[in-house]
């Protein structure tokens, strides 16, 4: 079965979710594109979009229609060539409409899981729960004589473990998109010891056609991305705990959040990032990693406590940010949660005092937005962190500890052979987390 044949029958499980919907979008366009190429035209292509509720699937179709239209508008120059021999399609408008129809024609939204058993390839993007994932595989892939290939979007669960427990015999691989899959360029590919070469080669070919940046990760819980992020966040929690000796909890959280953004030239502060991902998701990833990576205590009682109080983060349906560690107004952090008082305290009550305690930013300042756009960013960063190194303020001290810890985490991912090399670690943070520089650098050596 070659690449085009493989893409004749595909299933996405969890298709209406955050990740699933983006994966459906990418695959449906790729399947339609393959079909539109000369020679592949007459074959029927089916993408089963499986989820639990019709309501969510209705939202998926709406999302697909809007996104495919946008994509078609962007690709109009190429699409006119694709449809060159269709005399009935003259205007750009005709061509965009046709492409949207051709892509949507591929997609079959369904709540019947069993149809996925017909597929040559199953993309799994169900919630991060091993027993659920195993149950889904048991009903679609395990003991299936058609031997479908399984690509799981798991953020943390070792592939080898899935393979053994679902008895897939090497037909499974980690295909870790970043959120949102249609926009984020990075994909971490994870082969287990048993993943077959055929499966691996297909995944690479698909990534290439989707124009993704691929970073291979070893099959270790958390992989590279969450391997760094989870340890980074535990460091932040620990630092906040340390600061608590001299200030209230909310101020400690504020200080660490501010330092990890402004002093480290990152796109957002660490607690804002945790809120963005969701405290529940972080808890769940830690719960996968901790027992599988002994000796590091990858666990946060603070996150457990906040979740018990119903503080979760994550996004509303319209994409707006829910409150978590921080409170948000028009998407911007405006307060910090106090688990003792069980309420948010507005920044205005302590921000000025905390900023004064942290001290000024290095001169000249370097906002993340400027750093990522400037072609001379290496020089700017060296200047900024050079200044930071010689500053004798609480903010600079926190930042140095933070940068050094982030670097150690990166180096450990290489020495533990989770990543092949420093470049791969840096690539994941640069493209998957939009950092302006990789954690393994000279600034914090």
């Amino acid at each position: 079965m070659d690449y085009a044949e493989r893409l004749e029958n595909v299933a996405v499980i969890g298709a209406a979710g955050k990740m699933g919907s983006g994966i459906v979008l990418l695959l449906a366009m790729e399947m339609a594109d393959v079909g539109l190429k000369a020679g592949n035209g007459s074959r029927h292509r089916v993408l089963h979009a499986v989820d639990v509720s019709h309501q969510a699937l209705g939202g998926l179709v709406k999302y697909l229609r809007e996104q495919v239209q946008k994509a078609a508008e962007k690709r109009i120059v190429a699409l006119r060539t694709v449809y060159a021999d269709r005399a009935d399609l003259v205007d750009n408008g005709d061509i965009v409409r046709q492409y949207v129809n051709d892509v949507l024609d591929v997609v079959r939204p369904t709540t019947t899981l069993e149809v996925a058993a017909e597929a040559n390839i199953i993309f799994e993007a169900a919630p991060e729960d091993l027993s659920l994932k195993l149950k889904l595989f048991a009903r679609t892939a395990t003991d299936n004589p058609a031997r479908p290939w399984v690509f799981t979007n798991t953020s943390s669960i070792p592939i080898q473990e899935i393979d053994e427990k679902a008895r897939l015999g090497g037909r499974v691989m980690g295909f870790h998109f970043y959120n949102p899959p249609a926009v984020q360029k990075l994909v971490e590919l994870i082969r287990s010891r048993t993943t077959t070469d055929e499966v691996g080669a297909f995944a690479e070919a698909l990534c290439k056609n989707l124009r993704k940046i691929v970073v291979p990760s070893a099959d270790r819980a958390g992989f590279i991305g969450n391997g760094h992020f989870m340890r980074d966040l535990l460091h932040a929690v620990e630092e906040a705990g340390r600061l608590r000796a001299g200030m209230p909890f909310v101020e400690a959280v504020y200080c660490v959040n501010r330092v990890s953004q402004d002093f480290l030239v990152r796109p957002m502060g660490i607690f804002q990032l945790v809120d963005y991902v969701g405290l529940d998701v972080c808890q769940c990833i830690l719960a996968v990693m901790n027992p599988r990576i002994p000796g590091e205590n990858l666990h946060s009682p603070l996150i457990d406590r906040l979740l018990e109080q119903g503080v979760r983060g994550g996004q509303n349906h319209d994409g707006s940010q829910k409150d978590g560690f921080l409170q948000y107004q028009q998407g911007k952090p405006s307060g910090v949660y106090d688990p003792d008082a069980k309420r948010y305290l507005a920044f205005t009550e302590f921000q000025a005092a905390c900023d004064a305690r942290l001290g000024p930013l290095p001169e000249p300042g370097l906002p993340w937005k400027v750093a990522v756009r400037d072609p001379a960013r290496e020089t700017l960063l060296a200047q900024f962190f050079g200044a930071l190194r010689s500053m004798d303020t609480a903010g600079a001290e926190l930042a140095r500890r933070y940068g050094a810890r982030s670097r150690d985490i990166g180096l450990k991912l290489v020495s533990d052979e989770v990543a092949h090399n420093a470049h791969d670690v840096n690539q994941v943070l640069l493209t998957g987390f939009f950092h302006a520089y990789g954690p393994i650098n000279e600034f914090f050596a």
Partner: protein
Amino acid sequence: MNKLRRNVYMTGGYNTVSMGTGRKEFHPKQSRPGLEDYICEAGRGVLQQVGGAGNIDEGVIGNFMAARFNSQGNLAALIPAIDAGLQWKPCSRVEGACCSGALALSAGIKSVLAETADMVLAVGVEVQNTVKAIYGADILAAAGWSRERKAGHAYFFPGKFSDRAGAYYEKYGRDRTRKAMARWYRNAIENARLCPTAQEYHNTSADLDAVALAEPNPRSFVDHLNVFDCSKVSDGASAIAIASADGLKRAGIPTSAAVEIVGIGQVEADLTRPPSDPTRLETTRRAVQCALESAGITVDRLATVETHDCFTIAGILAVEAIGLADPGKGPDFVLDGQTARGGHVPFNTTGGLIGWGHPTGATGVHQAVTIWEQLTGRAHRNQIEIPTDRPYALSVNMGGDDKTLVALVYRRG
């Protein structure tokens, strides 16, 4: 073409803002003024200067594609919406793609020449931001032959002028031509920055040449042009009064507050035939020659020119077609600074299509308004000096790919 048999004047010009990307007040997702709002603003702007609707005998409106951009036909009947005093007066709408505005002028001039009117209100209008640019490209493509659409570029007209640019690069050299196109862009923006109604009035780019020299990207756009080589998508209207000597007198306007139309050249080329030489604008050349002949002057008497630079390359080709530079020498003329506002013959002194904007059906009228302002000393910060030995001005309005052309020669009244 003979000398005009009656004195024809223009006065009381008015431009709305050319609205679209680049203007601070433009937000693609917010509701904006419609076709009738622009028509009324521009029309009333003229009526105020000519003593009201009672002095107007006839109305003409130029528009290209309101039928598709705004689902609106029968535009002549929007002229009475400008002022109750225009109710029951004869009105018509003319269309010749991007030359619709100058066709409105031409129709008004002919009414005055025919002595069926002493003062005509000429309006040009287009409201194009109702659709995204890629669908606007479909609509504008109708300025070409519909049978060419299928094989044409997604951005049909940029594609046509990209082909012309490619042919020109090949014949005369790419580097110098690209540099001249970038200079054309810079001149346009610098002029527009002085004109509050211009679409690029708020442009603050520091290094305009560098911006304009961005390499074309054939994957997302066309082979030989970048987006800065193109006029933008605009909403706007312009209007002006066309009058006989009696018409001016009736309105109490001295001829010194008007320009006189001393030459006209109107030329049509076959829409179904490609240009014989893509490096030349042959129809433009003929129209300008007619206009100069009917004015009885040569090109060296021109103080300023408003030309149809829908693309920077069209500006350079027009310099040659007008006869100010030999074929292949247009880029040198531009790079020498001759067309800049301090140059020998300043072109497009309020920014032209690239800088002021290109509400397609309004453009021909906007050109006339700019010239009226310049020759009567009303151009404010855009004012250039008009040498006494070269008191003439020229406007060139083009519809489609060098198909429908109107050139006019003006002198202060």
